[in-house]
């Protein structure tokens, strides 16, 4: 579904991604690990279409040139980014945001939009699966949410939008042990033949819950090593030093 070839990205004349290659097939879970500042968030931003980068290389997503699509078009086609730092939008009710988002995606795909009642039913179900306190959803989007609540809210959105490619940027950072388990269960529940995941994390622990098919090490804008889930353990023991 996704082929990345020789992807380079610059911002303010600083090269951050320096020729990155990666292929993800439908249903696969890929994990990316790497030191701070190595370009992990940059990769997720570039894949989601964030402006401001000078990008070169080829990215093919379901036989389409992904780099030519607008941010929202990518979202309509099933790309979802769980933000490392979810944004606060004052005055905007979280439920209304989720509904607007879901209906925007549905509309773009020619599907029937949900009315308020159908939506609330859906959100209730998804929230209870994630043990996410529904009262939070009537508050302003991410305003005053705890770090963990923000992350859970991202996963809730993911499970409502049912994306084809979910990019999770350090979703596990800041989650307590129970929340980590719940979020992992959420991801595992959404795993299917059609949906793929790109999971960015610093901690091997998450990968015990969500068994990845592949683990990649990103250092200085390039993938320097790839392997199976055992690679995560190896990194945990030896650190990145041995690879750079």
């Amino acid at each position: 579904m996704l082929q990345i070839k020789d992807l380079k990205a610059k911002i303010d004349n600083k090269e951050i991604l320096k020729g990155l290659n990666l292929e993800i097939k439908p249903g696969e879970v890929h994990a990316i690990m790497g030191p701070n500042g190595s370009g992990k968030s940059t990769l997720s931003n570039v894949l989601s279409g964030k402006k401001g980068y000078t990008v070169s290389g080829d990215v093919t997503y379901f036989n389409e040139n992904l780099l030519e699509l607008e941010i929202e078009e990518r979202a309509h086609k099933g790309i979802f980014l769980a933000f490392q730092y979810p944004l606060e939008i004052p005055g905007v009710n979280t439920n209304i945001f989720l509904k607007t988002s879901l209906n925007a995606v549905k509309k773009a795909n020619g599907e029937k939009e949900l009315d308020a009642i159908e939506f609330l039913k859906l959100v209730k179900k998804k929230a209870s699966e994630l043990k996410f306190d529904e009262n939070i959803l009537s508050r302003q989007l991410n305003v005053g949410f705890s770090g963990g609540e923000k992350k859970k809210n991202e996963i809730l959105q993911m499970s409502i939008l049912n994306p084809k490619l979910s990019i999770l940027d350090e979703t596990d950072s800041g989650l307590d042990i129970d929340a980590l388990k719940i979020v992992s269960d959420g991801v595992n529940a959404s795993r299917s033949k059609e949906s793929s995941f790109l999971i960015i994390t610093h901690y091997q622990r998450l990968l015990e819950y969500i068994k990845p098919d592949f683990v990649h090490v990103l250092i200085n804008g390039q993938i320097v090593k790839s392997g199976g889930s055992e690679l995560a353990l190896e990194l945990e023991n030896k650190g990145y030093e041995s690879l750079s």
Partner: protein
Amino acid sequence: MDAREKEIEKLKDYKYGFSTDIENTRAPKGLNEEVIKFISNIKKEPKWMLDWRLKAFERLKQLKEPNWQKPKYPKIDYQGLYYYSAPKSMDDKPKSLDELDPKLLETYKKLGIPLQEQARLNGIAVDAVFDSVSVATTFKGELNKKGIIFCSMSEAIREHPELVKKYLGSVIPLTDHYFATLNSAVFTDGSFVYIPEGVRCPMELSTYFRINATETGQFERTLIIADKGSYVSYLEGCTAPMRDENQLHAANVELIALDDAEIKYSTVQNWYPGDKDGVGGIYNFVTKRGLCKGKNSKISWTQVETGSAITWKYPSCILKGDNSVGEFYSIAITNNHQKADTGTKMIHLGKNTKSKIISKGISAGFADNTYRGLVDIARNADNARNFTQCDSLLMGNKCGAHTVPYIKNKNSSSNIEHEATTSKISEEQLFYCNQRGLNQEEAVSLIVNGFCKEVLQQLPMEFAVEAQKLVGISLEGSVG
């Protein structure tokens, strides 16, 4: 693009921009005693009304246009304007909606203001003012049963002279300032509302103002009186065709709340704002003032100002009665070359009076948006309290936002709080929304609606939905 396509593109930007081809009766061009007599005569006004107008006109000759406001405008040629224009079909005033010129009904239908049966379903009583005359007032019968008077100003002058004489000009005096005095001399129509003692008006009252004719100023006059213990919620909406000329709209609105009465006055102003380059558009120079005359009375202004080339108005409250309350909730959106200088005056005269000001200014493009407000606490106004919050949101870096709060405090027991913020829509917020499938315009609309939430919440439900859409539409094209 050919001419027709261009026209269609333009209309897309401002969907109320069409004009109605209808035969008009007009006063001769220019401003003079003859024209004032013409207006008074065509409205079959009693002599006292004409005298009042002429007195205002005498006074006007000694007044100068104010010039302290931020938005400047080219000199207005008052002699080049028509002061009265009405559809010919109104000469013999139709007795019922069925007799109304179908072209007028069609116009209001296009504007989404159903004057006929549909109005019943919505449960909103509507008065429609087309250029200089009121063309229809719905639901009259039902309101009459409760003793509520809701009619055009012209009708009120003829049918309820005792009320008009008593209250007209009692809040905005004849001599007030240039535009208010001009209005007193040449006002044409508007709405009149009287709610009797102890009556809670069972439905929203609404007036829809439409400028159609060219080279015509609109000078409407609205007077609302809430007698002891009564309640009314009133809403006005405004649109105008797209024209290259600037058209003047100088209305006067007076509200009077007696003991324990409450008036809620909401405005959704969407006059033609001019084109992208700032050509054309309405000059919206309006005087709105409410008098909390009785104890425990309350007047609440809510305005959503999205249209007009220049918006210049300060809906105000004079808190005369002890324990009276004044509120001002405002959203002012300026895009392209639009300008706004708006805010409120809260004059605390009575004891334990309270006022609250919430202002949300949004600027985009090359626009300029000023909040100007006065909180005035008189010597005898013990324990007066005011809370003011002014928030500005900027989009892009070519627009301006200014906050000018004046405070005059002559009583040491008062409590005045003021908060102000200026913010920008961040790229990150937009990215977040886009990533969730919203396009740029939907994202801006969502964020701005969030920013304005406290004010939108004040609007009656039926209009809040419209206003939310309008907020999105008026900012279209503001982010690249």
